[in-house]
Structure formats: structure tokens, C-alpha cells
């Protein structure tokens, strides 16, 4: 429920706000249809009071089920489509689920404790649907760990929508959101919550080429669009951004370096390009709209609902948007004793501004000296011929490890001319790093590669340290 106690449906069904629609490559569903129809084929009541695994591959049915089940289910567990099957039993146990929702006709799940399995489908089933609210539904998100079992993060509708509270609703029909994210991940879920409160939402699709997605978004009149810096770099490389005419562009989920911010500002002249800090555990902390990387240090002393501080060099957050706890046996505490969540993001302050330098776990140790891959990547990415880069450790007998970099070139570079020979370019990049970084942070080797792997969560895949 929202902090005012309403369910998601009650909140979005407020007079005048049911003008929005959900749009996938295969379907367009006006939200108003849910007044007399359901994606759950008349079986909604079987899920009342249950702890429900949301297992659909399809984002459209996931979106509809989320709207329908808040206030009805005891608990709603959002499984992203790329969740490895071997982790499912652990998720089911950890979240104490007894029901599941999956795509139509896909049989019953043989999962521990799951006794009811309901198919979600479109077109909607027409009939009487009770939208009465009987439960304060708990929302469970899975963190996308690179390896190992995902963590189960417990939220409420109030914590998930805390960044929306106090914001005026847009006039119906004026805002069309889209996001590269899957809406079952925190970054995508934030966009989903914003969109259904008075706007429409164009859903992405994992098998759809980025050019087609952007064309579909443009045709749907998308006004607000969000993704990770890696999503945006891929979109910039597609050459298809010109079709889009957004009024607001947002980045979150990874560090937004100056290069990607500048590229987006150049691609969308006059359009606000905002980067937000949010994580599944810490919630949405703030949004930066001045077009510069990092955030003003003054935010650390703010006395609003979101409190930020830097301790042990990492950013800590206490806010109504933070998750309550991790679920599962023997789960570690999610918050510290003072209710602050340690984000694990290393912050460096320079001239009144705080910069994200990297993740605590991602540090490379070069002869006892720390290197955060992201700070080296930011220098490399600032070069006009570079679209993205990945900095990693290479084992080294002399210093334990040295830093190396893989670089993907931008298509157009600074002009239309061909890129410099790779040897000249790697020399230029090494020089740029030498000017900006301490000697141990300068990559010992730089390689030009055709592409870098981006995960289903839209983040650059980093080797496990």
C-alpha cells in the first residue's frame, strides 16, 4: 500500500487517472479495462492472502498482475525473466511462497510449498473482479548478483513509491514513459510506478533489437525514458536515437560519467538529462539535473526525508524508500543499527562535489594500491572515439595485478572520419590516463574490442574479483 494506505489499484484508479495504457510489442492494454477485466482469468480470489511468485516471462502480464495483486496477495515476489531455474526453489523457500503466477498454459510449478498456480494472459478475461483491499502486500525484489543465489529484498508499496509522494500527478494523457529496464528490477519498477500514476508505459522486450524498441517508443510518443548508462551507450551506438523526441531522459543503476551525459545532451538538445542514484536496497536517493557527473556535496547535509552521509568512504542512505530487510534464513541485516543502508559505493569529494568512484567489491589491488575500475573507465570514456570501456585486473607476478582495459569505439567519433589506427588510439588513451590518473591506475594494456557484454539488468558485466 502507499503511505496513505491505498492499494496500487486504488491509487491509480483515482478519478481521472485511468487514461493511461500499457504497451508491449504485442499488445496495448488501456488501464481502464481492468475495471471489468483481469489478466488472471477469473482466479484472482485464489491468490488472496497468498505469498505469490510472479514468474511470467512476459512483462505485460507481469505489469497487470502487479496492479491486480497489490492489496490482494500477502506477498508478491518479482522474478526477473533471466532468473536461473536452479535458484527458484531457494527463492520460493526464502519468501515462503504458496502460489505462483506464470504465462498461460505453462502447467503447475513443482516448487516447494507452491500449491496454486494461476496463468496470466492477454487478452484480458472479462467478468466481475473484486478490487477490494484486504492485505498490506509485501513486495519482494531479487537483487541480480553476478553469481550465486539472488538476495530477497523486502519492500512495501509505500517504500517503493516514496520518491513519488508529494509529486503532482500529470494531466491525463500528457506523459508516456518508457524504460530499457525490465519492470521487475528496481530501476524498471520505479518507472512502472511513475507511469501508472497518471501516464502510459511502453514496455521493453528482451528479444527486440534496440533500433526496433526505439522506433516503437517514438511511435508511441514517449516523453520520458530511462535506462542504465550501458543501455544508453548501446542506444547511442544504434544511431536510432534521432527518432525519439523525449522531454526527459534519465539514467540510473550504474555510474553516469561525464561522457555519457554529454553524449545524451548532444543527442537531445535542450532536454533535461537527469541521473538518479537508486539501489534495490537503499531505494531512490536523489536525482541530479545539472548535467554534471557526481552530485553536490550539499546533499550530504540535507534535512529532507532522504538522509545521505559518507562513512568509511562509502555512501550511506536512510530514507522512507529503503527496503525493510532481506528475507530468508540467516539473512544478513540490510540496514545498520542506525537504519542507514551502506550502498557499497565509494565516494570521493572534490571541490564541493561528490563523485562515485566504483563499488567496494570491485576494487583492483595493484601492489597494495587501490584502483576502482570505474574511475579509469570514466577517463577512457571521455575520449571522443570511445563509446564504452571495461577496466579489469590482470594477474601479474610483479605487483599481484595490473590494470587492463577493453574499449569499444563510437561509430561517428568526433566527426565522420575513420577512427585512428588502433595503435595510435591506444597510445592516445594511455596518454589521457597518464595525465588524469596516478601511475598505478593507468592501464598497462588497452585493447580495442567490437563489443562488451551487458547483463540482463542493463549493466556492464564485470569479472568477479
Amino acid at each position: 500500500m502507499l503511505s496513505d494506505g491505498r492499494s496500487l489499484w486504488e491509487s491509480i484508479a483515482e478519478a481521472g487517472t485511468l487514461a493511461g495504457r500499457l504497451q508491449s510489442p504485442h499488445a496495448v492494454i488501456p488501464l481502464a479495462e481492468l475495471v471489468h477485466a483481469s489478466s488472471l482469468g477469473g482466479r484472482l480470489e485464489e491468490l488472496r492472502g497468498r505469498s505469490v511468485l510472479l514468474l511470467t516471462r512476459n512483462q505485460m502480464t507481469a505489469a497487470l498482475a502487479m496492479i491486480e495483486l497489490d492489496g490482494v496477495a500477502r506477498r508478491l515476489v518479482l522474478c526477473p525473466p533471466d532468473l536461473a531455474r536452479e535458484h527458484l526453489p531457494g527463492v520460493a523457500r526464502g519468501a515462503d511462497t504458496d502460489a505462483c503466477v506464470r504465462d498461460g498454459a505453462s502447467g503447475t510449478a513443482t516448487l516447494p510449498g507452491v500449491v496454486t498456480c494461476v496463468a496470466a494472459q492477454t487478452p484480458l478475461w472479462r467478468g466481475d473482479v473484486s478490487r477490494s483491499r484486504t492485505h498490506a502486500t509485501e513486495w519482494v525484489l531479487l537483487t541480480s548478483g553476478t553469481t550465486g543465489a539472488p538476495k530477497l529484498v523486502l519492500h512495501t508499496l509505500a517504500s517503493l513509491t516514496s520518491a513519488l509522494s508529494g509529486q503532482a500527478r500529470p494531466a491525463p494523457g500528457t506523459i508516456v514513459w518508457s524504460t530499457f529496464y525490465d519492470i521487475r528490477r528496481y530501476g524498471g519498477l520505479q518507472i512502472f510506478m511513475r507511469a501508472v500514476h497518471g501516464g502510459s508505459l511502453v514496455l521493453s522486450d528482451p528479444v527486440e533489437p534496440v533500433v526496433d524498441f526505439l522506433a516503437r517508443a517514438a511511435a508511441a510518443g514517449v516523453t520520458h525514458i530511462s535506462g542504465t548508462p550501458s543501455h544508453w551507450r548501446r542506444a547511442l551506438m544504434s544511431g536510432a536515437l534521432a527518432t525519439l523526441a523525449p522531454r526527459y531522459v534519465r539514467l540510473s543503476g550504474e555510474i553516469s560519467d561525464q561522457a555519457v551525459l554529454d553524449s545524451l545532451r548532444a543527442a537531445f538538445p535542450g532536454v533535461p538529462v537527469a541521473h538518479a542514484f537508486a539501489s534495490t536496497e537503499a531505494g531512490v536517493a536523489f536525482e541530479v539535473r545539472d548535467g554534471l557527473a557526481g552530485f553536490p556535496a550539499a546533499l550530504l547535509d540535507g534535512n529532507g526525508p532522504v538522509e545521505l552521509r559518507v562513512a568509511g568512504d562509502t555512501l550511506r542512505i536512510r530514507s522512507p524508500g529503503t527496503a525493510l530487510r532481506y528475507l530468508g534464513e540467516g539473512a544478513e541485516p540490510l540496514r545498520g543499527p542506525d537504519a542507514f543502508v551502506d550502498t557499497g559505493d565509494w565516494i570521493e569529494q572534490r571541490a564541493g562535489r561528490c563523485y562515485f568512484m566504483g563499488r567496494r567489491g570491485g576494487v583492483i589491488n595493484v601492489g597494495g594500491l587501490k584502483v576502482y575500475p570505474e574511475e579509469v573507465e570514466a577517463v577512457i570514456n571521455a575520449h571522443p572515439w570511445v563509446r564504452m570501456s571495461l577496466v579489469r585486473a590482470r594477474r601479474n607476478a610483479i605487483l599481484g595485478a595490473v590494470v587492463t582495459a577493453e574499449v569499444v569505439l563510437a561509430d561517428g567519433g568526433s566527426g565522420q572520419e575513420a577512427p585512428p589506427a588502433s595503435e595510435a588510439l591506444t597510445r592516445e588513451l594511455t596518454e589521457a590516463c597518464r595525465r588524469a590518473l596516478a601511475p598505478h591506475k593507468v592501464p598497462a594494456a588497452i585493447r580495442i574490442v567490437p563489443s562488451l557484454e551487458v547483463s540482463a539488468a542493463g549493466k556492464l558485466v564485470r569479472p568477479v574479483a
Partner: protein
Amino acid sequence: MSVRSTITSQFQQVAKEQDRMLAPLSDDLRLVQSGLDSLSFAIVVARLEDSLGIDPFNGSESIEFPTTFGDFVRLYEHFAK
């Protein structure tokens, strides 16, 4: 390019990049007196792995750690065979 000339040019290139004064590269030059620091050596080893495809220090074979430039070259020549 021979293994020796590849190594020589890497020593010179890295010394230049790291602003180190490189001693003349004779076989009996002791590596500690070459003018390169440990970071420079680490970079040389990483670059040689890329250009020669070998890293004698990271292999399973136990090696005698080179103390002179000549030892260093011979180590790489041995593994390049």
C-alpha cells in the same frame, strides 16, 4: 621481431611512458639498476604477454627469477620456443 628486440623496445617504451631514465641495456645489467621501478616491470610483463603471448611468471613451471637483463631475455626466449 626477435624476442630480444621486442623486450628491448618494451623496456624503452615503458621507461619513456613512466619518465624513468633507462640504463643502457647490456646483458649483465642488473635489473634493479635498470632504472625501471616495479610498476614499470609489471607493465613490461603485461605488454610482453600481449605481444609474445607468454607470461613466464604466471605459468605452472617454476622459474628462476631473472636478476639481469640477459637472464630476463633468456627466460622469455626459453618460453617462446
